[in-house]
């Protein structure tokens, strides 16, 4: 059965840019929708097959861990499910395809918790760097597949609405509406933020930096309030800027950083005396930069060195995953998941770097921490899908990928 993957593994992934995704969205018609469907149809199995290959390269003792094994099986099922889809030529076929996508998305919700649990159980059998790279590549690929799937689903749904509104007849019967509006995928109403977007776009053409931060701040304060804890003030300064990004992603990142800052500030100061958190926004032609600066006491070197690592954390942190069976790594989950899971920062990094951004954290032990996020502005960056093979030398680029790892911290 593995032979089946060989064809796919040989193929290179075809990364797409935010701009292209947007283009599909703006100029939607049946033809383009089907084009999108076929792109996704062909692309996903290739990407999944690469992941499967990476799983297979893991040391035996890790690969046979029951959690890891179960994720591996899920990947196989998804691969199988998707590779069998024939070319899509009609809207009805697209609907069936969409259902398949939803199925895959839902079944993969358990991936993150299980992977993380599995990794933490196998810690001593594998080199921590290797594990970090594996997890990073896996999560990055996962983000990419979800983006493609969710975007296509959004397009499909948008097209249906356009069609049904232009024609006076009732909605076509081939839509399986209930599963489309499944709240596990995207649910604008469940978020506490008011989004005035009529369509279910997952890609916002322009995010305002200031608004994004303001919304995350509100959310973080709401969560603090729910715990009956006074939250620190947040001062936002700098000049606002607009940039193209996936709103969910940027929201996740900023929220993570803010909530870390909140937590540490609250932990190190008395309730009445909380020093404010300063968020600075700035931009240049190429990027938008966020700086989140807190006085939460900083971190000693021992913690700071492990910040981005998946496998080197104290077991206690990842133990919380046992109680969390599903994770889509979306901000809306924070309503349900309130314990620190220990994966916020690595996940933020996956989201940031996915489109060629950068995230850096510098700390002053005894005083506070500064987090810097750099996001490229115009969405012409292609997806960052490097790490074709984790077992090869780290940092080796796959040919043809314009992977920009521009630094802003030296």
């Amino acid at each position: 059965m593995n032979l089946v993957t060989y064809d796919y593994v040989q193929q290179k992934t075809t990364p797409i840019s935010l701009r292209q995704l947007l283009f599909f969205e703006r100029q939607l018609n049946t033809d383009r929708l089907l084009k999108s469907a076929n792109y996704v149809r062909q692309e996903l199995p290739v990407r999944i097959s690469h992941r499967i290959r990476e799983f297979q390269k893991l040391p035996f003792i890790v690969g046979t861990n029951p959690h890891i094994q179960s994720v591996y099986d899920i990947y196989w099922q998804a691969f199988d499910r998707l590779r069998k889809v024939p070319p899509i030529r009609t809207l009805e076929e697209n609907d069936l395809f969409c259902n398949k996508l939803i199925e895959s998305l839902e079944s993969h919700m358990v991936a993150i918790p299980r992977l993380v649990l599995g990794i933490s159980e196998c810690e001593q059998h594998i080199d921590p760097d290797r594990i970090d790279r594996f997890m990073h590549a896996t999560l990055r690929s996962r983000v990419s597949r979800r983006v493609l799937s969710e975007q296509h689903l959004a397009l499909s749904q948008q097209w249906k609405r356009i069609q049904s509104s232009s024609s006076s007849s009732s909605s076509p019967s081939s839509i399986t509406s209930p599963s489309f509006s499944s709240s596990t995928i995207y649910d604008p109403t469940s978020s506490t933020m008011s989004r005035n977007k009529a369509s279910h776009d997952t890609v916002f053409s322009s995010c305002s930096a200031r608004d994004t931060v303001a919304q995350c701040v509100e959310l973080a304060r709401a969560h603090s309030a729910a715990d009956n804890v006074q939250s620190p003030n947040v001062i936002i300064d700098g000049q606002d800027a607009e940039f193209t990004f996936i709103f969910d992603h940027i929201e996740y990142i900023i929220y993570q950083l803010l909530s870390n800052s909140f937590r540490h500030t609250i932990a190190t100061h008395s309730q009445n005396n909380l020093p404010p958190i300063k968020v600075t926004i700035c931009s240049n032609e190429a990027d938008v930069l966020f700086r989140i600066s807190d006085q939460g006491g900083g971190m000693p070197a021992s913690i700071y060195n492990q910040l981005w690592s998946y496998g080197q954390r104290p077991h206690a942190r990842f133990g919380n995953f046992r109680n969390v069976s599903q994770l889509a790594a979306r901000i809306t989950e924070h309503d349900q998941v309130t314990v620190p899971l220990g994966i916020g920062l690595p996940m933020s990094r996956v989201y940031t770097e996915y489109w060629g951004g950068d995230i850096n954290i510098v700390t002053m032990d005894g005083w506070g921490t500064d987090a810097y996020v750099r996001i490229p502005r115009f969405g012409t960056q292609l997806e960052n899908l490097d790490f074709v093979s984790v077992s090869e030398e780290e940092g080796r680029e796959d040919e043809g990928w314009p992977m920009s790892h521009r630094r802003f911290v030296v």
Partner: protein
Amino acid sequence: MNFAFTFRSVWPRYYIHHASITTSTLSPTRSKTTLFAKRTIATKTHEKPAAHAFYDDKIVTYANRPIRPVTLSQLVRFGQPPLTKESLRDCAQYARTELPVRLARRVRAFQTLPFIVGTNPYIKEIYKLYYESFESLEPYSHGRSPNDDLEYSEKLEDLVDRHADNIPTLARGFLECKQYMHSQDVAAFLDDMIHARIGIRLIAEQMIALVRQEQTGDTNNNSYIGIIDTQLNPAKLVKQCSDFVAELCEFNYGASPETIIDGHTDATFTYIPVHLEYILTELLKNAQRATIEFARKRGDDSPPLPPIQITISHGQEDISIRIRDQGGGVAEDDLNQVFEYSYTTVSKASEDEDPSSIFTGMAEMAMQSGIGGPLAGLGFGLPLARMYARYFGGSFTLVSMNGYGCDVFLKLKHIDQSMAELEI
């Protein structure tokens, strides 16, 4: 004959000086004057020139000796109160035998530079300086008499003084020789040189300070052990440096941004003040210059210049200092080169296409030779600051928010028992 003649004309002063050293100050393995004479005729009359005679035996001998590193705790122990004649003697003994070795190595390093680089007047000047220093200290490494310590310490003071401008001079020299040497080789040479220099000065200055302390019976500065201050208050030092730099700034630009210092302003730690002073001065120069130039570029002169914020934090293992400015940041292309020697964003007058502006040259000169030292433009401030920071296990991080400003994080470890085994 021609060869010898040209040879002499290329290294004229070296030989002239060399010949003037009397034999009495040197251990008489070979009379120098006869050596000199041999050189001029060597190529003429001997088929196989006595090649080894050209290469100074002594330098090679000393250079080949292993360095005996001193640990920080020893250095401190030399000067731990109560300061006794004995501990002073130990320190002196160590310095006498160790310094010539290190100096010889420096001389050797120069000798391995490409010829064309070595003849650059700036570089040659420093080379000669090291050579002379070696020559003048070397005799003290054999035996001693009790009064020697004071004399030796005076010699050291003189040396330290004459070597004060080494780095700027070297930097100028290498700037001129840019096309003759790979930048990596230059960087390697300078890294070595500077690292060694820090060590040499440390030993020398510690000795000088201890002698002075013992002489004057000076117990006022209880917190000082030689040049190490056990109660260094970074906030105070920051204030001093920023005031000094503000003056330079006013001189050059007519304005200077405000400096705000916050955080653990009362914190103290054990460190070597001159090192920290150097680092802070360099960083503040960058910050202030950037702030003013950025504001002017945006035509934003009238409102008050955005202040520079400095935060000090006393952590478990180290002291952190953060310098935050709104000077526009460093462009991405430049960021990779920011730690390279002789990289500077100050435009050279020679590259300026506008001959009618007589002030560009002056501005550059003013910046490079302002009161108290250059403000900017020689391109070695950051690499040097980073080396000082790292010397005792610290770290230096620069974050550039291009279009806004820079944050520089300096982390310095307390020099205490945990660093006892750190070798200088």
